[in-house]
């Protein structure tokens, strides 16, 4: 029976609810813009990762390698694009 029980998915679901609750806290509690934004960004990215791994089964087939390579590549490109843009438009702009 225990091997039939989707422990991973149930735990994932509970954790996902928890993350949502934490994100909602930003609305209900009074905090600075920076603190609120940090909480939202962190919970959002953890949530996305959770969905990808637990509910979209990213690591469960033999395509695991290709899928994770693509995800890491995408994350890298996204970070470069965002920070590069900030560098051009704001930090490095004189």
């Amino acid at each position, binding site marked *: 029976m225990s091997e039939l029980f989707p422990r991973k998915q149930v735990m994932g679901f509970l954790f996902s609810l928890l993350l949502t609750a934490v994100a909602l806290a930003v609305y209900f509690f009074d905090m600075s813009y920076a603190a609120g934004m940090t909480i939202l960004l962190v919970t959002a990215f953890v949530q996305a990762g959770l969905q990808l791994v637990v509910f979209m089964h990213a690591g469960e087939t033999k395509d695991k390698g290709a899928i994770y390579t693509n995800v890491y*590549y995408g994350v890298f490109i996204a970070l470069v*694009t965002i920070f*590069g*843009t900030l*560098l*051009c*438009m704001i930090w*490095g702009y*004189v």
Partner: protein
Amino acid sequence: MGFFDRFAVPHPNPAIYASMVAIGLTVIAIVAGLTYFKKWGYLWREWLTTVDHKRIGIMYLISALLMLFRGGADAIMMRAQLAVPDNTLLDAQHYNEIFTTHGVVMIIFMAMPFIMALMNFVVPLQIGARDVAFPRLNALSFWLFFMGAMLFNISFVIGGSPDAGWTSYFPLAGNEFSQSVGTNYYMIAIQIAGIGTLMTGINFITTILKMRAPGMTLMKMPMFTWSSLITNVIIVFAFPVLTVALAMGTLDRLFGTNFFTTDNGGMDMLWANLFWVWGHPEVYILILPAFGIYSEVISTFARRNLYGYKSMVASMVVISVFSFLVWAHHFFTMGQGAVANSIFSITTMAIAIPTGVKIFNWLFTLWKGKIVITTPMLYALLFIPLFTIGGVTGVMLGMSAADYQYHNTMFLVAHFHMVIIPGVVFAMLAGLTYYWPKMFGFMLNERIGKITAWTIAIGTLLAFMPMFFSGLDGQARRMYTYSASTGFGVWNMISFIGALGLAAGFVLIVYNIYHSIRYASRDIGSDPWDARTLEWATHSPVPAYNFAVVPQVDSIEAFWDAKKKGHILFKGEYEKIHMPNNSGVPFIMSCIFFVWGFSFVFSMWIPVIISTIGIFACMALRSFEEDHGHYISVEKIEETETKLRGVS
């Protein structure tokens, strides 16, 4: 403004009226011809509804050639205008529209479909697959591209062409400075074509990762397939940026938002930034498949395996990462400080390293090879020195301090033409000549082909080398005329002569096709070049199912091994083959997209809503449709195989 006034061309002149008449006559001629020869059914069954990757490839090819001539006509007009000082052939507005459409057509509607044509035709054959992973999506990709291209091309007779440059920088492209609907066409036509390209990217990544013949591991794939895989990965990561930027630009122009305006918190330079975040990877989207073609051609006609296979793959992977790290070098002069510019300068120069690795690998492949100079090989050999001129001037432009001198001069124009023409256009023409027998079952004439290659190479040098000099002398790009005292006249006259040479070369290509259709031998077998990769293992022209028996691969050059070392490629008996059904939905859906785009350009909201519903209806239809494809029976395969084998 009355309802019909907005469709009028804002800056009419006799050439535009003549084009209107020509377009009208062409449409009438096509419709009449199809009716007279009773070809409507044939057209619908065999082409408009096809999901066969080979036919889609051929349709991409035809579109690319048509667009080459459309963009080429723009180029000739520009060079003619600049050939002598103080020329009045074109006025400033007309010149602006022409350089804008020349850029967009050549990059997005000529070079892109050309690489799509070769990818579509070649990749499934090279990996021993029967079609791409999602054949119907592939058809939709093509038709979206085609409708985007058509929408863009009607701009100059209905409502006016875009005139803010192919980069369409805001605030110039904003409503304040570009009042005609031209820039709306730009935003929406490219959006529609871009969605198609994004789909192709997903489709080909899946195809290459999942549908390779048994035994073909990633490191046993032919080099063109590798380059296509990397290209499509770049497409998937770069095109969403363009999609978002175009959507924001459209919102700014049609709905009064302030993303790229100069007030209310808008940031006009953000457009330039986003455009090049897509635009620089786009350069590599164009050049990597070209490099793939050169790898195939050079290895075939040097009669030896490609030197440094692993370093070729590694250099492409490195290029695909670096291509996302360099975009700010397109606007060094926009106001960033020394730190930002230096960072992007260094990443830019770093790209020369993997590119250099590739160049040296080709040279080492040629070294001690038994070189056979055929037309495709001639293009490849001409590519190496000419592309290097474009490459080293790129390094000059990449030095941010020096770039202040070159920026927005003809030096830049010369640089990117010397990169794109030898890099992409030569490769596509080499690929066209190389794969022509596989596509159509006869070869293009070699003598005319070689004359064409030389004409185009000399034309390229004549047309673009003078621009380096006039650019360093201070001739700005996009300037519609200049006075005699500047001394630019002689350089521009040489350029004009070179442009005529290029035009002559492209006419020769058409003549070659005509000549070869009439006179070329059909008795050429399936492997006329004595090539090394799987696409040459099946018949020419290729049967619908590509391979009667799925090939078994155990090395990089399985077909070569089969010819020389007794490797058995096709093991086993004929079995019935599962193939996808044709469908009219992609074509109809894309037609609706055309109406959607056209209505959007002119802010006609009721047709926009109706066509949006139509688009979703097509998608719903597909979701609820039961279509399991069809089987080709063993008898049918035997019949086809006997017939195809019987020719030779």
